[in-house]
């Protein structure tokens, strides 16, 4: 019985991996270049910030360097206890301003709205702390442009990112779109023309490969299948009306997954012809945790956010959400991603107790290893087709690193997933209260 279950799960795992590897390989062309449009649609970029004094200037610089005219950016200082607001004030030379609110989404009171004297398309909202969702809602209230981009304060937009958003939303059917999040430690040189590098610590290398796989393979495939379940909070784009129709963001630990699922609900009920896609050319660079303890905190948070969302939407799968996103969430994310983490972690003990299964476990491991190697290779090839190409030396480094990474850092990921789930389930009630105590807004899915 247990063996049958193992084989079924493993079969499922293989099927999903095959999709992730071969859908992108066969559908993405070489030198897939971004098509620039002449007409620029109006875009508002919302940047919620809570205690981001150290990093917010980089984010601002990224916005100032964007190769796009018809946009405004609104920083929302969510009652930071540090100098976030002063930093913005000094650089931007802020003047108080009156702006019309839509009056549809409730949020914590604002203390003031300001416009930059120096860069008139940059605005700042200073408000009382209410959490990331609350800050985003305050920002949405002030928008009038058709497209709203949400950006984390620790993320830096690529110069062509908004052009890519513009091109993506040229298609009327697109109601929301996810950007490609890259790891800033994996790049060197100017922000205007960053060069990808692989000479960095193992912990960061592991995350570079993971983000690459996640965005270029997983998210791309999900996009093709209409099964996107998370538009990363770091960088996403939405049609303004959709955000209002779902009553804005909900205050939860995983507000990015939550808003994505709310829009998926909209796609199932109201906008049957519309779709959610991934913007392969819209890059942003985010700093990933550089120490084990920070990585641990981030991953535990992600996993708690994920389980929380699954729990919240438990009655909506298949009924209120489309078939494929439901299937993806339940099978790949929950069963394969979370439950199997426990199985894989307990496998060594099961083998010790019952050595007769050793060969079978070894067989399954070898198959999974082959798949993982090909998946890593596919991620590199696909990102290269989008112009993310490393030097020969760096490719050598990847080739040396990948076989080792699969059996080291990646297994650590399983531990995080398991721990996050246990911690969430253990403290389900307590968690709700601690939601607002945001340490950082660095969430991704």
């Amino acid at each position, binding site marked *: 019985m247990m*063996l049958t279950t193992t084989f079924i799960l493993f079969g499922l795992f293989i099927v999903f991996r095959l999709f992730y*590897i071969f859908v992108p390989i066969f559908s993405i*062309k070489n030198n897939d270049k971004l098509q620039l449009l002449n007409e620029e649609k109006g875009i508002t970029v919302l940047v919620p910030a809570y205690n981001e004094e150290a990093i917010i200037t980089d984010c601002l610089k990224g916005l100032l360097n964007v190769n796009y005219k018809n946009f405004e950016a609104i920083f929302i200082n969510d009652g930071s206890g540090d100098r976030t607001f002063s930093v913005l004030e000094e650089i931007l030379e802020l003047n108080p301003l009156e702006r019309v609110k839509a009056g549809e989404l409730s949020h914590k009171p604002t203390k003031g709205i300001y416009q930059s004297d120096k860069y008139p398309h940059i605005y700042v909202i200073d408000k009382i702390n209410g959490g990331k969702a609350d800050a985003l809602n305050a920002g949405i209230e002030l928008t009038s442009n058709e497209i709203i981009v949400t950006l984390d304060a620790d993320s830096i937009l690529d110069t062509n990112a908004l052009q890519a958003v513009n091109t993506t939303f040229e298609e009327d059917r697109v109601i929301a779109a996810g950007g490609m999040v890259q790891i800033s430690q994996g790049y060197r040189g100017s922000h205007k023309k960053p060069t990808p590098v692989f000479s960095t610590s193992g912990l960061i290398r592991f995350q570079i490969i993971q983000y690459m796989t996640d965005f270029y393979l997983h998210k791309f495939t999900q996009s093709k299948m209409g099964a996107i379940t998370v538009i990363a909070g770091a960088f996403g784009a939405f049609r303004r009306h959709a955000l209002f129709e779902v009553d804005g963001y909900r205050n939860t630990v995983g507000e990015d997954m939550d808003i994505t699922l709310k829009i998926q609900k909209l796609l199932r009920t109201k906008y049957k012809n519309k779709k959610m896609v991934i913007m392969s050319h819209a890059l942003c660079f985010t700093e990933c945790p550089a120490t084990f303890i920070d990585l641990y905190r981030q991953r535990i948070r992600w996993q708690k956010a994920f389980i929380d969302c699954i729990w919240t939407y438990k009655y909506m799968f298949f009924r209120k959400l489309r078939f494929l996103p439901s299937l993806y969430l339940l099978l790949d994310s929950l069963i394969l991603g979370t439950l199997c983490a426990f199985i894989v972690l307990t496998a060594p003990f099961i083998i010790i107790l019952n050595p*007769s299964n050793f060969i*079978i476990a070894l*067989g399954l491991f070898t*198959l999974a290893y082959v*798949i993982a190697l090909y998946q890593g290779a596919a991620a590199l090839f696909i990102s290269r087709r989008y112009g993310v190409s490393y030097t020969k030396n760096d490719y050598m480094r990847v080739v040396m690193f990948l076989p080792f990474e699969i059996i080291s850092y990646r297994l650590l990921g399983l531990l995080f997933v398991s721990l996050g789930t246990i911690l969430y389930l253990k403290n389900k009630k307590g968690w709700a209260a601690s939601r607002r105590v945001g340490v950082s807004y660095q969430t991704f899915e």
Partner: protein
Amino acid sequence: MKRIIFNVAFAVSFVVIFASVFTFYLDEFAGAYNGIETLSPSDQLEILECYDWSEQISDFPMENGKGAEEVPVLIYHRIVDDAAVTKSHYDDSANLHSTIVLKSEFIKQMEFLYEEGYTVLNSKEFLLFMMNELEVPEKSVLLTFDDGYKDNFREAYPILKKYDFTALSFLITSIIPKSDEKYKAQDVQYFSTQDIENSCDIFEFYSHTFAFHKQTPDLEAHLKEKSKEEIKKDISVSLHNLNERNRAFSYPSGEYDLDTIAILSELDIEMAFSIDKINAEPGMNLLEIPRKEITSTTGMEDFKHKLIEKNPTDTGS
């Protein structure tokens, strides 16, 4: 064009590598997956103290001090319920396979033993009798079952239990399923580990080899054809499976030769059973104990005859 070639090469190389790894492990997967996982060489049944009752020696009421001089040892294979008999139980010439005894027949046979006051011995009593160290009643018998068919548990066990009889069951340990499956009379099924644990109050379990209940392509028994090392290894593995219970052994199809006997003796096996038409009596080689086969064609008269019939006077020494 270049991309297409690359994609195809990428896909093909993947398929080739993945398929070769898969084929390499296919036997293991299939073996495990064929539904049932069976005992592996390292496994041990949890029956260490389960049939300690077989060490007990009954206080036999001996009338006139007249003990048995010889004891018939009966060997059964399958016991199938009359109502459950299907095509699969018949051979090519439309006869019930000889190894199958119908449940109704088995009931009559056990009833007979009970009503006639037969004493069913356990292994210890029988061993001491064979060593001339114990007197057993004139009407004594030893019941044995070969191969460990699941129907022995389903059909024979309740009947034996009803009459308070016990029996020796010889298991081919490599085919013991580790998880219980539903009993299907039409299939050939074997005692699962659970069945064994649930019936050790009636059955004593001993080795019928680990995996050598087979024949080579030219129909020679493994126990005669394989090398001495291989045979010894196979049997010791089965003993390991059985918590080193080495009181008894049964030769698959009753076939053995001098080498086999030597191996069993090296492995300290106390008694080994073959198949013959005569009763067991003290003085016989303990590794060549004869058993009388009960088959599908054994009628009641035949059965009684097998019990009563004495050995010709020139055997046994």
